[in-house]
């Protein structure tokens, strides 16, 4: 079933209103349900309120986390998918890969809590792999170049410069 507000996303929130004995139902996606509840002051009930219990801010971010943010920070949104920090806290999941950058600061303590770590080790995808490794090499070469210049080792610096240029071209092409 499609969301009756945006007609784009799957309706996962089902709200029943009873006003003067009249029943009305609304079938919405999580985003639109949130929008409506903000404007109507009505809390939607559905899967997400269940998940909220599992992933409430206190669990994810430690005691006091839910009350700790106000004002400007509350409307912080992912520029790519539109998910807000509040949405994340309410749902427990993120909207897109860009959210990881957007909410990096809030995520770090959560990752530490869940995994006891904040940095990836292990498999790297083939395409990500190439660029990631090239960038790492590039960074190292630039450091070496600076060191060489400081030491006035100009021949070495020239060689390094050529290698950096080659890498930059490779990165630009990929």
């Amino acid at each position, binding site marked *: 079933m499609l969301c009756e507000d945006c007609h*784009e996303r799957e309706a996962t929130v089902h709200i029943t209103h009873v006003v003067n004995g009249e029943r009305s139902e609304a079938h919405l996606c999580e985003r639109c349900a949130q929008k409506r509840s903000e404007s109507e002051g009505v809390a939607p009930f559905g899967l997400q309120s269940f998940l909220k219990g599992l992933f409430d801010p206190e669990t994810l971010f430690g005691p006091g986390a839910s009350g700790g943010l106000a004002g400007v920070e509350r409307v912080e949104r992912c520029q790519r998918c539109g998910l807000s920090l509040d949405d994340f806290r309410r749902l427990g999941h993120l*909207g*897109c890969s860009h959210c990881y950058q957007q909410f990096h600061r809030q995520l770090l303590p959560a990752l530490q809590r869940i995994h006891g770590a904040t940095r990836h080790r292990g498999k790297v995808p083939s395409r990500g792999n190439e660029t990631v490794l090239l960038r790492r090499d590039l960074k190292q070469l630039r450091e070496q170049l600076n060191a060489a210049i400081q030491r006035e080792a100009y021949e070495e610096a020239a060689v390094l410069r050529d290698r950096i240029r080659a890498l930059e071209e490779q990165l630009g092409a990929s």
Partner: protein
Amino acid sequence: MALDEILKHPVAQWMVGDAPANDIVVGTRVRLARNLHEIPFPGVATRTQLGQVVDQVREAITHAAQGDGRTPRLGRLHFFTMDALSPLTKQLLVERHLISPQHAQTGAGHGVALRDDERVSIMVNEEDHLRIQVLLPGFQPQEAWEMANQVDDALDARLVYAFSDAVGYLTAWPTNVGTGLRASVMLHLPALARAGQIRALISAVAQLGLTVRGIYGEGTEAWGNLFQLSNQVSLGRSEEEITTHLATVARQVIQQERQAREALLNRQRIELEDAIYRSFGIVTHARSLSTKEALRLLSDVRLGIDLGLISGIPETILQELMVRIRPAHLQRLVGRELSASERDLQRATLIRERFKVQR
């Protein structure tokens, strides 16, 4: 190939045959969560975006199935969109542990790929764009990871995954980020359960970054003494480390279950034999059985087989019947919809017949 054709065997391929430690380990599962670069996760994606994911993944799976010189052939993988499957077929997939119950509720814009031996399944647009799953019989964490890794390599050759240098494979839930790996062993622990050791086990493995929960049943109940031991940590450790760690802890649990069985035999032989033979009597003669009761009785029978008290029945009877006695499988067997009480009758009949054939 139609999905019903793949599912035609009464028992899924991953459940049968000889496998390491299958007196205690029912099966091993490895799951990898992956998302595509630049497309929002399924939870917030639009219908169009879900369609894009389905198209890209379907294409990648088709190529992966054929192999292209660089990557090995993955074999007979078939892709289906969820709206092309009947509610019964979806439920059969759930009962065979090939898709999640939530995924069975989806339709257009969602999909599933399945290899004809049912050892590899890929959910498309579940909580993540891809959930690659490998299911093997018995205790095979290393083999399951290697197989999942191969499937992932073959898809990776055609897809660009969402990945960050810092936190690895990006997933909808921060609980899966990093490797995106969840490895599980499904354990039959009747002796530890009888000895009241499950609570202690749960808190012990929690300290090691692992979880134990019942496979069937609600809340803290674990019907049939069937448990799933899985890693909770997916970030900061490599896939090999996670798999090895899980295997090490699982081996200890298996060891403890064996010791508990030994102790039961030594100290409470009569009570144990009495309980097992009573269950055997009921399960082979009852006219109506609920899932919960059937699993309890079958767990006892399985323990009886392991302890050499009951013979002439295949060891895999528990994993076979734990799937065949569930509603959709019963409904398919009978060929019509069944009420709950009709199911209890059919369940008892199926089990009676199954034991009759064996003896």
